[in-house]
């Protein structure tokens, strides 16, 4: 019943827009008295609706036009140009693009930078970032090996150009003479001031710090990594510190034909560390030199000899359990 009345009311409300009330009510004589007050309410809604006062309408119009005039007077302060970004956003975007572009250029140029140049720090920074961001340990080790080779190439370039620069690199000791060593094919001059830490031996890894000048690399410090080996009288570097440096034309008398020791360095030695190796009574003696994997020449050992990597090589993992214990 109510739904039927609602349907009739809906129809009558639509009809009421075109017809007088009585004509609309005549459609449903039976419900005439129920529909009448409803339709009268609808008529009242139109008849009694509020009207704006002329004053209010005039005020609103005047306010709008005054505001428009103010906007026209100061368009630059408020009105953004169509289709363009706001100025601050544009400036920020331009700054970011410039910084990004400059950064890319710096990184590209720094790739060939040598020690002592302004961009060398950028080069090292990029390398460090790449090491940090490497996806896994394998990738990180490969990168470190590449960067080690890069250091040696830099030293070689400095020696060829005769430029002066402070350098630091690591490599494999290939030749040991009183006045000069060969480390990964690079001649290293030993002076009385050269500080040698560790036990030098052919095939061992060493970190060389020094300075290039006039085509010579004068070592200030050499840190030999790895387990101590029995002293070899003929190659005691400390006994030769009084000898004067000689040009690196000396042909090596001890060459890299001597294979590296079979036990890779067991501890990473920081440049300033000077561990005093003490062979305890239970310490196994170092095995005799044998040809290790990848030990054909010094350069091939590069991937094995990074500081920090040597620990992993100890015992090729077979002794891990005993180390842990």
């Amino acid at each position, binding site marked *: 019943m*109510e739904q039927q*009345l*609602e349907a009739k*009311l*809906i129809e009558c*409300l*639509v009809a009421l827009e075109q017809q007088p009330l009585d004509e609309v009510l005549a459609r449903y004589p039976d419900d005439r*008295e*129920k529909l*009448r*007050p*409803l339709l*009268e*309410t*609808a*008529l*009242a*809604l*139109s*008849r*009694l*609706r*509020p*009207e*704006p*006062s002329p004053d*209010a*309408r005039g*005020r*609103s*119009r005047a*306010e*709008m*036009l005054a*505001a*428009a*005039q103010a*906007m*026209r007077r100061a368009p630059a302060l*408020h*009105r*953004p140009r*169509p289709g363009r970004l706001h100025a601050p956003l544009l400036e920020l975007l331009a700054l970011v693009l410039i910084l990004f572009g400059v950064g890319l250029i710096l990184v590209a140029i720094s790739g060939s930078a040598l020690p002592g140049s302004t961009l060398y720090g950028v080069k090292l920074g990029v390398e460090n970032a790449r090491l940090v961001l490497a996806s896994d340990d394998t990738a990180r080790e490969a990168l470190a090996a590449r960067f080690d080779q890069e250091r040696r190439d830099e030293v070689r370039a400095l020696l060829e150009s005769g430029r002066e620069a402070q350098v630091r690199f690591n490599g494999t000791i290939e030749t040991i003479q009183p006045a000069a060593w060969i480390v990964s094919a690079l001649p290293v001059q030993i002076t009385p001031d050269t500080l040698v830490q560790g036990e030098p031996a052919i095939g061992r890894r060493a970190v060389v710090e020094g300075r290039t000048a006039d085509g010579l690399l004068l070592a200030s410090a050499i840190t030999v990594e790895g387990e101590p080996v029995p002293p070899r009288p003929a190659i005691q570097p400390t006994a030769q510190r009084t000898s004067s440096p000689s040009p690196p034309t000396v042909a090596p008398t001890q060459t890299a034909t001597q294979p590296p020791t079979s036990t890779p360095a067991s501890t990473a030695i920081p440049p300033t560390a000077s561990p005093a190796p003490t062979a305890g009574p239970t310490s196994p003696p170092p095995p005799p030199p044998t040809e290790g994997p990848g030990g054909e020449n010094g350069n091939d050992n590069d991937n094995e000899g990074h500081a920090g990597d040597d620990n992993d090589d100890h015992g090729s993992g077979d002794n891990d359990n005993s180390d842990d214990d």
Partner: protein
Amino acid sequence: MWSAHDTLSLLPTGTRGIPAVQDELALLARARSLDPEALAQIHDLHYTPIFRYIAYRVSDPDVAEDLTSEVFVRLLSALRDRHAPPHTLQGWLYGVAARVVSDYHRQRYRAPTAELDNHLASNEMGPHETVEASLTREALMAALDELTDDQRTVIALRYGSDLPIRDVAEMMGKTEGAVKQLQARAVAALARRLSVESG
């Protein structure tokens, strides 16, 4: 409730003093350059229906006047900032008006009123009672406060602004049938309320 905020629907124009689409596009183009004549024309065309719509939504004519002015100030800001409707003003203006009303109600928070029964209550009215005879505008506005938001919006758009069912349905995001039903129930609720008050 109102769901046509900022919608730029192309409503049928050319009725009740609203210019045809082409005329309105030309008017809008001039208004975007803040042409005073075009702005005044837009204001005069839309002021009264927008005022009536707002007045039915807030009950207080003084408040309705202020809020209607606010709608046109916002239109000006939108024209300046290129956010104004690209095609037609009518739907856009009612959307802004709805927001202005909502902001007003939010600011003067009022406790939610109990909704009237949505069903018709004709049985409660005597068959010979007449609403129109004793009805005043104040009583009508007071009775509007008892409607639901949707009911009141339909009343404001249909009887305040004289908008056709189709336009109201589009603005509110409802079907025409739903709008007709809302209108009928709102009218019935008002009639019952006014009858109770006068009785």
